[in-house]
């Protein structure tokens, strides 16, 4: 082989690898050529009568134990069944199957059976948009459920808006970006989450005897975590300008001693860990997601450094627990955990029992329902509450009902506010790893029994 072909192959390989890498790093989207698999869940035959269903958001639909009859109500959506987001999307897949099964076991929706069709968007936003176009225009589904992941939700919402569909969604993180009047978020963190979330975290830490006075930020440049740590320079719509944990910290009197950013997909945290240890702040604030936290903690342990206090934005709960002693005392925010007071919320017990069983069957490592499952279940509760509330499938009427009625969910009561882009109060609580398990520890009146926020050990 002479030099020219080598260079040609080299250029091709570099181009191919860079395209893949760029896709993987760009908001987590991967050019994955996996099949456009579809997964049709037809639970309409599964009509065993059971006892009354307490978890239905609205039970005024007559006899809940009656077998559903008539043409099925079709609900469609996409999920990242393959690709970089698949590990988390699997949670939403399980929740959807369980919720639809539960609906059909308890009389269906408006007395009709429910048919749920999920398509694989391969963790790609453009693919997700194309699939919602297909679901609405070709499959002519009656209702849609949002996909998983900020990028896919944002893209699919535009399609829903084009056709006027009610669009419940569970995990979008860029609150300010959603102005569609019929979108209904169930990651119920409030429009100004870049202000309220960090304020909540720092207020919780201020209750400690050894409250932190200095803070180091380590932030994934993923849009959602970037928004929460650095806020926005200009307000958009009803969004307040400013905010972000870094600015909120200073406003609340904490000294920011170091801010370090890293790219999505970073696996080596040695250098960052060294700088965190060198800064030695009272509080380590990790604006990361997934396994960023556990990976950073492992690197810190290699440095023989234990953070005195540590907060993680959206960690995978299982890997955080598996990180061992170095994660003890770590905090995060949550909207659902498998204990009181959440289990007493509408559908909390059903979610816990059904999800745990299904997750075990699916072979998931961490089988407790928490924020992701809670957001997902609530999205289904919102959709069915709207349909049962207006007793119709008309999207304008469903949206109108949702905007004018409180909705009981596993997270608590939702009240959507039009003047806040259909967000409401920030209802997150603070959870903490204590004795090798997650517990809700703040605010006090929502803390798990016998638990309170702990300081450094």
């Amino acid at each position, binding site marked *: 082989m002479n030099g020219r072909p080598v260079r040609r192959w080299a250029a091709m390989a570099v181009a191919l690898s860079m395209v893949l890498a760029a896709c993987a*790093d760009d908001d987590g989207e991967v050019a*994955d050529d*996996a099949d456009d698999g579809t997964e049709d869940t037809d639970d309409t035959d599964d009509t065993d009568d059971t006892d009354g269903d307490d978890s239905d958001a609205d039970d005024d639909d007559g006899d809940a134990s009656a077998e559903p009859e008539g043409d099925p109500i079709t609900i469609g959506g996409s999920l990242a069944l*393959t690709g970089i987001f*698949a590990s988390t999307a699997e949670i939403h897949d399980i929740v959807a199957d369980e919720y639809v099964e539960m609906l059909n076991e308890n009389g269906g929706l408006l007395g009709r059976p429910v048919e749920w069709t999920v398509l694989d968007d391969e963790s790609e936003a453009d693919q997700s948009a194309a699939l919602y176009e297909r679901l609405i225009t070709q499959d002519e589904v009656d209702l849609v459920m949002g996909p998983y992941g900020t990028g896919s939700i944002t893209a699919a919402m535009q399609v829903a808006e084009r056709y006027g569909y009610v669009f419940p969604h569970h995990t979008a993180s860029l609150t300010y970006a959603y102005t569609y009047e019929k979108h209904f978020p169930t990651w119920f963190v409030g429009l100004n989450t870049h202000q309220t979330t960090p304020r909540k975290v720092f207020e919780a830490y201020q209750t400690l005897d050894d409250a932190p006075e200095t803070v180091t930020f380590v932030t994934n440049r993923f849009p959602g975590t970037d928004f929460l740590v650095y806020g926005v320079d200009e307000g958009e719509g009803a969004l307040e300008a400013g905010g972000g944990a870094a600015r909120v910290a200073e406003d609340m009197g904490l000294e920011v001693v170091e801010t370090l950013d890293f790219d999505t997909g970073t696996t080596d945290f040695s250098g960052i860990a*060294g700088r965190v240890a060198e800064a030695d702040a009272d509080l380590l604030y990790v604006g990361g997601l997934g396994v960023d936290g556990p990976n950073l903690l*492992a690197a810190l342990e290699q440095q023989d450094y234990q953070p005195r206090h540590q907060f993680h934005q959206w960690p995978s709960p299982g890997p955080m627990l598996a990180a*061992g002693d170095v994660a003890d005392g770590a905090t995060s925010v949550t909207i659902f955990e498998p204990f009181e007071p959440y289990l007493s919320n509408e559908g909390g017990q059903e979610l816990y029992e059904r999800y745990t069983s299904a997750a075990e069957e699916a072979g998931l490592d961490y089988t407790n329902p928490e924020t992701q499952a809670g957001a997902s279940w609530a999205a289904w509760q919102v959709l069915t509450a709207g349909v049962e509330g207006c007793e119709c499938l008309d999207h304008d009427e469903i949206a109108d009902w949702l905007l004018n009625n409180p909705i009981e969910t596993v997270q608590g009561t939702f009240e959507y506010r039009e003047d806040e882009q259909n967000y409401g109060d920030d209802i997150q609580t603070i959870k903490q790893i204590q004795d090798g398990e997650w517990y809700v520890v703040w605010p006090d009146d929502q803390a798990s029994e016998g638990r309170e926020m702990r300081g450094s050990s």
Partner: protein
Amino acid sequence: MTVLLQTLATGVALAGLYSIFAIGLSLGWGLLHTINFAHFSFVLLSAYVTYELSATGGWDPLTTIVVTVPLGALLGLGLQLFVTTFKIDVFGTLIVTFGLFLMFEAGMAMQWSADLRRIPAELNPYFTSALVIGPIRVSMLLAISTVMALVTCLGVWWLLQHTATGRGIRAFVQEPEMAAAFGVNYRSLALVIAGIGGATAGLTGTVLGMYLSLTPTIIEVWIAVVFAVVLLGGLANPIGVMGSAFVIGMVESVTRQFADPALARLAALVVLIIALVFRPEGLFKRLVEEARE
């Protein structure tokens, strides 16, 4: 001074991981004319095997190399037999192995699901432990991979330079007809190289199985940097692979320590582009071209 030494040590350790990952790909591309995209799948499959044996079988994860190395070698041999049997050209190997890559990804998703898989901390002491030399601390896993890389790369270099197998392979790549006339059995020798390349994938997989939370797509974040190491290193040049891995590891380490850590990977790829503009053949020469001179 300590910070500088620490940065240097981290860069060297990263280079070890990149070297062991890239050497098999470089050998296959440079000597067998196989751009083996499935190398990444072999690595990930080995990582899952390490996970499985450790998490469910209770093995010390490092000892799983007794399974992953032969497994990788077999996969390498199988691919080489396939390529030889069907006479697939170099461009064809890129397409075929990319297809294999996707098939492996789907297969691993079916077997282990998309859920995160990580060896529990109590079974994987290497993940959180460090090699301590005075004030310098280096990840034990990266240190292990550096030793593996040194042994492997120097071993392959010695094989290619100082054994009949190596001379035969180089002669065939340089002048196939002449080599065949002198009795060089390329098919057999190619299997040796393919087996070695696959074995390095097994080794790498064991390291990554201890290092990462596994998902069927996690390997994609390594593609760019590994190809960068291969191209900068000069094809099939084990010393070049170590050299280019050192350059890239050092650029990343220095960027993470003294600049914005988020720019570390970008900085490494910028170095690759600049280097290829001025030296399209890579920072180091191809081993076979050295033989030609």
